[in-house]
């Protein structure tokens, strides 16, 4: 980030799950993160390190604080304690749009597309900071405006095509089927050129075949763009199949971290999801 005079902090690269990520700067390094709302502690001592090409999951019962964590990671909420480093830069006090420019993008649990705009325009809004065309040039329709527009259109169409949405480019986002809207949100997030993308319940409302398709697409996104993916999901089939590392939260605290196999057999996780066994 040349236009942001902040020191890049070299983050120790312990705990990186993928061999390919060994020795590389983590995209996300979260230390002792916590937030209180009034007297209520919503998130406390949350720690996570995400390698540059890692697919990680964040799971936990309803109301565990998962979306709150996403809001903290993207600068929507300012933490009460702890710090978030995106590509080694502390996001403390940064306005939300600048945090996005550091390379973090997200989708929303309740889809928040610009429903009055076409799918293509939604993606182009995501490319806002990339389209280099001055106000004057677009006002006067200079050749540079047409060049920038053509380039933007082409890239937006490529991204749509990547997720199999090229056909609906000219349709209003609000009129698209639910599963398509979810995928369009991912495309819009990809358009901001992120190094890590946060997906908030990407499979919610999808049918099993759409979910299977989504799993392939999530892996394809990582393999094509070489970015990290951090996802919240309730669909255990998706989480266990796609994630290389999983963090489990309950009451705003991490109760377990590990590979899918480790999580599956972790007693604390089983207790959080199913309740403690009654032995009387």
């Amino acid at each position, binding site marked *: 980030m040349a236009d942001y005079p902040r020191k890049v902090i070299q983050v120790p690269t312990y705990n990186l799950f993928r061999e390919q990520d060994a020795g590389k700067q983590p995209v996300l390094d979260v230390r002792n993160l916590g937030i209180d709302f009034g007297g209520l502690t919503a998130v406390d001592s949350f720690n996570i390190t995400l390698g540059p090409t890692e697919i990680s999951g964040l799971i936990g019962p309803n109301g565990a604080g998962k979306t709150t964590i996403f809001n903290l990671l993207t600068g929507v909420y300012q933490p009460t304690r702890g710090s978030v480093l995106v590509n080694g830069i502390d996001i403390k006090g940064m306005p939300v749009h600048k945090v996005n420019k550091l390379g973090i993008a997200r989708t929303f649990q309740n889809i928040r597309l610009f429903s009055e705009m076409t799918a293509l325009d939604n993606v182009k*809004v995501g490319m806002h900071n990339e389209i280099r065309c001055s106000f004057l040039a677009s006002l006067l329709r200079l050749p540079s405006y047409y060049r920038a527009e053509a380039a933007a259109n082409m890239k937006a169409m490529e991204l749509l095509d990547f997720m199999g949405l090229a056909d609906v480019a000219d349709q209003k986002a609000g009129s698209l089927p639910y599963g398509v809207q979810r995928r369009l949100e991912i495309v819009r997030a990809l358009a901001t050129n992120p190094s890590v993308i946060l997906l908030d319940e990407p499979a919610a409302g999808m049918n099993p075949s759409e979910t299977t398709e989504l799993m392939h697409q999530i892996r394809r996104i990582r393999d094509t763009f070489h970015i990290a993916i951090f996802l919240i999901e309730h669909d255990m089939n998706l989480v266990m199949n796609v994630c290389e590392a999983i963090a489990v939260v309950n009451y705003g605290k991490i109760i377990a971290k590990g590979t899918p196999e480790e999580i599956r057999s972790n007693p604390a996780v089983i207790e959080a999801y199913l309740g403690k066994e009654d032995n009387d």
Partner: protein
Amino acid sequence: MQILQYLINGISIGAVYAIIALGYTMVYGIAKMLNFAHGDIIMVGAYISFCVTNYLGLPAFVSVIAAMAVCTLLGILIEKLAYMPLRGTPSLAVLITAIGVSYFLQNGAQLIWGSAPKNFASIVPLKPVFLAGGELVITGEVIVTILASVLIMVGLTLFTTKTKIGKAMRAVSEDRAAAQLMGISVNNTISMTFAIGSALAAIAGVLLCSTVPTLQPTTGAMPGIRAFTAAVFGGIGSIPGAMLGGILLGIIETFSKAFISTQFSDAIVFSVLIIILLVKPAGLLGKQIQEKV
């Protein structure tokens, strides 16, 4: 023939309301606030144009550009100083501030230019066109006003749909939080909106005073309120709605002045507004938002 004449005059004054209403509607759509000081920006624009032509002796078009430049800066300044610190506070606080800014501008103008009305010489050099053997008069002001309003509406529509900044504006208007997470600066976008709205207000001020030649510190107040009405009438937040609302309002006002009563024209205009809103609460072209239950 008389009726046609009233219709033309109505469309002309309505076109001025439409230009003002476009400013209201844009600011409302993007910043989600009612900028009640918008009408007074018109007055400032007219005073600047008046000073540039009368005291500096510069040509009319220079005075319009000067008025636009001053109003643009003024609009950005007002937003930064008065409204931006209140971002995220209840909308009532912003509304009261806007009313305060409105009085501040009126009193400021009184301090600078005095309260005595100034005689504003029309900046339109065109001669009136006589039709139907002199029975129908179309003044140069009418032609310029209508042309200007159409050009502005087309320009704004192209701007908001085709340009990157326009798209950012629509994105902020639909979902501010999501737009921020796409890397769009909400503050810059809102500043831009105020800049454009205020530049339009300057044009409206010059055109208004070219048609109705008295200029005083309260000149903008009533047209401002009528234009706000027009924006609500057409469906606030909608660009074609503001245009339609403004023109209809101008026509209704002119007809009620001509056929019913000059004193009651405002009462009639606002009665029509109430009736329309009872039938179509979101305005003529506004979108009905269905509340989820």
